[in-house]
């Protein structure tokens, strides 16, 4: 058992490979999280234009990407687009898929946040002479973000976990590198290492979230 899953020799040999993967996972997260936040913010700002011609297509867009598995989106971009003469690398595909998928989730969260700010605040801000944009930027958004902070963090946790999908399209992130090391050494220890690293990396965030969520749900009664 120890020999198979916690083999010290293999750990030593696989460590540099796994470490490269860890760095790439962190880098990838640092790129796709802001990208998703940006996409979400754009969607939510568009949704704040309360016109049915804007709101309904947006809702359809968001629901579509909430229904569509991210892996299918990724495979569609990676394996489907080349048939249209457009060959993007694995990394670009991950970036686009995450922008679309996680952007929709972030968008829903931002929208809920913006809706949670009473309309009177916008009216008051506008009556003091702020423009619509200024009211949004200085009055609504800061409160909206604070109100939905637990949801934003929870979605960010999911996004970081989701970067493991990159392994399917040969992006050399943590899971990909661990599987490479596994296939070289014929031993599952590298995958156990990757799992332990994910756990150590994300556990603090999970703890924090669990406390925030408990408080939020209890406070809503």
């Amino acid at each position, binding site marked *: *058992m120890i020999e*198979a*899953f916690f083999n010290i020799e293999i750990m030593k040999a696989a460590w540099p490979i796994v470490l490269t993967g860890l760095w790439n996972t962190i880098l990838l997260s640092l790129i796709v999280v802001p990208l998703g936040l940006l996409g979400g913010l754009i969607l939510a700002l568009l949704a704040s234009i309360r016109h049915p011609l804007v709101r309904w297509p947006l809702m359809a867009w968001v*629901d*579509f990407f*909430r*229904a*569509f*598995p*991210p*892996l*299918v989106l990724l*495979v*569609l971009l990676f*394996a*489907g687009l080349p*048939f*249209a003469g457009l060959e993007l690398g694995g990394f670009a595909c991950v970036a686009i898929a995450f922008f679309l998928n996680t952007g929709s989730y972030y968008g829903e969260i931002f929208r809920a946040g913006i809706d949670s700010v009473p309309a009177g605040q916008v009216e008051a801000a506008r009556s003091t002479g702020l423009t619509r944009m200024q009211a949004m930027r200085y009055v609504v958004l800061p409160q909206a973000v604070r109100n939905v902070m637990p949801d934003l963090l929870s979605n960010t*946790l*999911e996004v970081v*976990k*989701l*970067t*493991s*999908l990159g*392994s*399917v399209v040969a992006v050399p992130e943590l*899971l990909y590198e661990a*599987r490479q090391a*596994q296939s070289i050494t014929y*031993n*599952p220890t590298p*995958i*156990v290492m*990757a*799992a332990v690293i*994910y*756990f150590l*990396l*994300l*556990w603090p*965030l*999970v*703890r924090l979230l*669990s406390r925030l*969520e*408990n408080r939020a*749900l*209890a406070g*809503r*009664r």
Partner: protein
Amino acid sequence: MSGWDKFVETFFNAKVMWKYLPDILSGMVVTIELALLIVVTGLAAGLALALLRSLAIRPLNWLIIFVVDLFRSLPPLVIIVLMYFGLPYAGPAPSGFVSTWLSLAFVLMAFSEEIFWAGITSIPKGQWEASRSTGLSFGQTLFNVVLPQAFRLTIPPLTNRTIAITKGTALGTVVAVTEILGQASSAMSNSYNPSPLMMGAAAYVVLFLPVVVAARWIETKFAWKR
């Protein structure tokens, strides 16, 4: 041939689509089976853990919290890969289907335990005390007073989470499960044409879009009143 015709011929090739339609349909059956298994076992296990936790046995609760945290922090694909490629080294060799089912059920168990538990703790202590003082047992209080209120509170976050995790059935394709994406990918490489992949994508939309729309409706119906 115009550009548009060529595009249709490539991505929506009727001949290829017709040929691989049975494969995609059988993939849909596998996806539905997998999804139902995950939802039923995951939610049941999550509720069971939340109920165990309400017994307030310290060491047991630490264990539950650790297991829940573990499955919340590991990416589902990592759990699937570990189970499918790792477990055989220790003896049992679960199939890709079983690995995907168990992995995602564990993940749903972890998330739903948290939500159920938050629902249970949100019921004020006074209600417990009042029920117990009228002569209801611990179990009666839990099932007749606390849970009915807790469930109502947990439904919106629970539906969202369940959908997000159930969509993960597509991950099964990494461990050779013949669900929609797996069927579509192999059909694509056999026909050297992306039409099956487009069909697969459409199949996911057909399966999951109604669920997402229903969830939106449930969300507004059970929305918390401020």
